[in-house]
């Protein structure tokens, strides 16, 4: 089945770089499609008065996009095919550029002979009308020529061009004023539409990511004195323009924290990592500071409006240790239990790797490598653990590789011979060797114990060595954590953050995160229904974060929590975590008691749970006891973690689940359509209004990600621009209103009798209900795509039918849920009152 995960992007100030290598306009002239060197595809909306705004960005390719083409239209749904150069054996182009292009040009204009202009390369051309040609060059110029009516090829020669001015006038169309910026050729195209609503459009894309449009008049004429006329630029736009225009949307995820910290302005996040087990977001900044915050709360504070309270009380910690930019972060415990859960590694521009205690914020050790900025931090593969428990690999920008032993706090080996950037790192556990593959396909083999270079191989031998190790590794470790870049991309999710910087964006890693998360859930680790995925872009420091929501998981959690709330007395725990929760339950009770005895917990928000508030405390103004109890708890965790993996830290709280659900609902609800609904949502459902429009996205099964860009359909959180949308939104929002009215009517009597605390009950239930609807719709949308995919095997479609059955089986649950709502409500409210 195709699963798609809804995502919300939190951009930074700078737009992701987009060096256009291919450009195309769809037939309806409403969409421009561009492919970039980074491998992303960007869709731009072209309005009927030729205004450009960016619309969506698609992550799918890892290599540069070379070509875009229209596919056949299925039921008016345009499809676009894109091609990249990612093969091992790319076909070489058999003739030089200049020759080829000129030849093309000749082919085009059957009438005339070659037109040679010194120093310029023709990139393409098209026939405008009878005897009129438009040609464009690779440096972004274009010319319209009028040919001789007689069509005599003899009469036009480049040398005579000036003599025959009456008939052949090179008609200079446009200067883009970007002469200085031609480090890479422009990509141009022309769209010739004769029908009325459409235009003749000449478009060009630049390596800088700028799109320029010229509207070519139907009858191009020269000026009266016969000199060429310049056609002005009709529209020009780039991603950064969009980001600048909507800067409330393009605010980084922790910008408000940094701003409050020093008051000078937000520090730019240069690297980040999300610890899903602890719901902690760790962001390293340009100025060397590392912020540790709670992921979900940070996201809520960033996205939701009227959250000044939450913003102010957002717990965070600042780790000061690096003197300059933090280039990479690694939380080794995340994917491998042999590392201590408190260890957090950070590498900086200053060539220092610091091992932190994430809970206390202390520096455990500082490795001074003295070999340029640290570019990557990697765990050693799982099969290497026979030798040493906690080994981390560190790649520096002088292409050296350091092996750090975290337990002993020593640098075991610093291999510094590599001439080219390091592409693969492998371990041979048998002979204790480090095998480093470089970008020039050479291989260096180091002996770890002695630190000597044992062999250096190139060419075929090198390839053989690398593949040989790869095989044995997979056999041994079953693709658990091999440190190779290749397998990083294809096999595991361990290095998703670090690898993405080299491959532009790591869309491959996305699914693998998902997949592995499913795997993890199977193997007793609880995965949060909510994940923050940091994304690094290739050329500039425009990093952004993607919030991923696991709908199924969320729904499951919410429903089970509701049921539990009715049946058992422990509303904290859901069915899902019951087995393991039993052991933690007593512990938590203990902690709670301790907190109660130690002092009062200031509730940050109406429903902040105890566990999350004692995980991280805000700086110094949080009461001390909580921190202590947190530390105590951690001590216990430390002891038990070896055996129980990440369970304690990873157990999911219902409040987190419901907060996550509310956050997602806030992002999805059509704010501003109906005031009544807005108010209802905010006051009654506790679904808060968004601070600004968010960029929604979707991660599809094949690890492809699409994200809307800031400014697309941006309506200032108020009036919706397009009537169509309004109509569609209204369908949904009407339902919301109806439902809530029903609920209100049902609950009115109850609330009257039982007092003000009861408001919690219906609120949660409605959120759950709304949410389950969304999940349900999501499932319905997903299933047919699996079924209708006819190329799939029969087996698959059968599984699709199974899904249908499941859906049908699941649906009766909702009405019944709805039906005996009041009685359940009593239980829940009672429950809430008790707690």
């Amino acid at each position, binding site marked *: 089945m195709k699963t798609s995960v809804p995502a919300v992007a939190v951009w930074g100030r*700078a737009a992701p770089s987009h060096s256009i290598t291919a450009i195309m306009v769809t037939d309806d002239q409403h969409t421009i499609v561009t492919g970039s060197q980074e491998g992303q595809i960007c869709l731009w909306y072209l309005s009927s008065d030729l205004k450009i705004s960016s619309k969506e960005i698609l992550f799918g390719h890892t290599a540069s996009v070379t070509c875009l083409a229209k596919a056949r239209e299925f039921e008016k749904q345009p499809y676009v095919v894109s091609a990249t150069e990612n093969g091992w054996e790319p076909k070489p182009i058999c003739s030089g*550029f200049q020759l080829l292009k000129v030849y093309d040009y000749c082919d085009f204009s059957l009438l005339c002979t070659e037109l040679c202009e010194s120093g310029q390369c023709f990139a393409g051309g098209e026939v405008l009308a009878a005897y009129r040609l438009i040609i464009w060059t690779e440096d972004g110029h274009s010319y319209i020529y009028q040919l001789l009516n007689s069509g005599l090829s003899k009469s036009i020669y480049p040398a005579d061009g000036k003599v025959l001015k009456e008939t052949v006038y090179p008609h200079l169309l446009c200067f883009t004023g970007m002469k200085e*910026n031609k480090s890479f050729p422009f990509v141009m195209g022309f769209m010739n539409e004769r029908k009325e609503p459409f235009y003749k459009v000449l478009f060009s894309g630049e390596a800088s*990511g700028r799109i320029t449009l010229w509207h070519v008049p139907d009858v191009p004429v020269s000026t009266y004195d016969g000199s060429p006329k310049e056609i002005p630029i009709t529209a020009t736009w780039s991603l950064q323009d969009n980001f600048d225009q909507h800067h409330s949307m393009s605010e980084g995820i922790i910008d408000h924290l940094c701003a409050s910290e020093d008051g000078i302005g937000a520090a730019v996040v240069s690297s980040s990592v999300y610890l899903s087990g602890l719901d902690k977001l760790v962001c390293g900044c340009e100025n060397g500071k590392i912020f540790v915050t709670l992921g979900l709360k940070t996201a809520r504070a960033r996205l939701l409006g009227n959250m000044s309270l939450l913003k102010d009380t957002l717990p965070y910690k600042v780790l000061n240790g690096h003197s300059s930019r933090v280039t990479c972060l690694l939380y080794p415990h995340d994917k491998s239990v042999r590392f201590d859960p408190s260890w957090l590694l950070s590498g900086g521009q200053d060539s220092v790797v610091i091992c932190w205690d994430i809970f206390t914020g202390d520096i455990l050790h500082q490795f001074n490598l003295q070999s340029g900025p640290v570019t990557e931090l990697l765990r050693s593969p799982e099969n290497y653990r026979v030798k040493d428990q906690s080994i981390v690999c560190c790649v520096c*920008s002088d292409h050296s590789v350091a092996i750090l032993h975290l337990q002993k706090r020593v640098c075991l080996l610093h291999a510094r011979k590599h001439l*080219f950037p390091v592409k693969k790192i492998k371990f041979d556990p048998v002979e204790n060797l480090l095998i480093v593959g470089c970008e020039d396909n050479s291989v260096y083999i180091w002996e770890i114990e002695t630190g000597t270079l044992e062999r250096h191989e190139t060419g075929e031998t090198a390839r053989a060595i690398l593949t040989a190790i790869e095989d044995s590794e997979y056999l041994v470790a079953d693709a658990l954590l091999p440190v190779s870049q290749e397998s990083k991309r294809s096999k595991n999710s361990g290095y998703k953050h670090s690898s993405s910087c080299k491959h532009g964006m790591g869309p491959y890693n996305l699914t693998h995160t998902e997949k592995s998360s499913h795997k993890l859930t199977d193997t007793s680790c609880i995965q949060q229904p909510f994940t923050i995925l940091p994304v690094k872009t290739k*050329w*500039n420091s425009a990093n952004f974060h993607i919030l991923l929501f696991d709908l199924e998981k969320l729904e499951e959690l919410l429903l089970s929590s509701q049921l539990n709330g009715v049946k058992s007395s422990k509303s904290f725990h859901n069915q899902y975590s019951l087995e393991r929760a039993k052991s933690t339950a007593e512990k938590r009770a203990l902690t709670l008691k301790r907190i109660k005895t130690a002092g009062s917990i200031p509730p940050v928000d109406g429903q902040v749970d105890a566990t999350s508030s004692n995980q991280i405390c805000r700086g110094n103004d949080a009461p001390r006891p909580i921190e202590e109890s947190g530390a105590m708890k951690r001590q216990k965790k430390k002891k038990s973690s070896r055996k129980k993996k990440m369970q304690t830290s990873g157990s999911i709280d219902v409040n987190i689940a419901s907060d996550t659900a509310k956050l997602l609902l806030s992002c999805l609800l059509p704010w501003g359509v109906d005031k009544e609904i807005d108010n209802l949502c905010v006051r009654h459902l506790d679904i808060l209004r968004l601070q600004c429009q968010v960029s929604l996205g979707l991660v599809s099964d094949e690890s492809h990600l699409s994200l809307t860009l800031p400014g697309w359909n941006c309506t200032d959180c108020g009036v919706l621009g397009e009537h169509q949308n309004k109509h569609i939104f209204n369908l949904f929002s009407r339902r919301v209103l109806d439902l809530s009215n029903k609920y209100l009517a049902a609950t009115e009597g109850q609330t009257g009798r039982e007092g003000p605390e009861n408001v919690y009950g219906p609120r949660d239930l409605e959120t759950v209900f709304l949410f389950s609807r969304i999940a349900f719709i999501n499932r319905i949308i997903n299933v047919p795509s699996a079924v209708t995919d006819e190329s799939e095997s029969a087996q698959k479609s059968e599984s699709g039918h199974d899904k249908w059955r499941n859906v049908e089986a699941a649906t009766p649950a909702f009405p019944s849920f709805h039906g005996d709502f009041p009685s359940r409500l009593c239980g829940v409210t009672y429950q809430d009152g008790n707690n």
Partner: protein
Amino acid sequence: MMAAAMASAAERAVLIQDARNHVNQAIYLLMNRDVNYQFKTGSEVLKLMDAVMLQLSRARNRLTTPATLTLPEIASSGLTKMFTPALPPDILVNFYINLNKLCLTVYQLHVLQPSTTKNFKPAGGSILHNPGAMFEFGSQRYEVSHVHKVECVVPWLNDALVFFTVSLQLCQQLKDKISVFSSYWNYRPY
């Protein structure tokens, strides 16, 4: 055989021509701008170097890594067919460049009878097939019985490879030097 080698110069030229085209593209990328063009940003240079290095390494790979062919592919290739008079049906010829060497491989074949009890396992793609490799071609099954290999060192190919390596290293050094300054860039490349 000498005549054959001469005739297959065209085939050999394909590999060299490929490499040459890549080099031409690299040169084109470098010569693409005005003589007095000034680079504005470091990332601009890095991008250019990436593109150039891609072409250079492809060109080098053309020469260093010969294509791995399956036996049926060799049998159907023009190399085997271009001989006049034609080769005996039990002879296959492959001709390629490996590093600085021109290599000629002659495979002597042995027809496998359909009734044979030997279990037939077709060989995969390889640069050099060993005796005993089996394949099916034109509804007939064959087994390689003998392999003869002749190598000839071409000095200028060696030079070419060295130059490729040196140029790649130069590009990489330029990249390294630029990225030293990357921490001082105030990011806004364009």
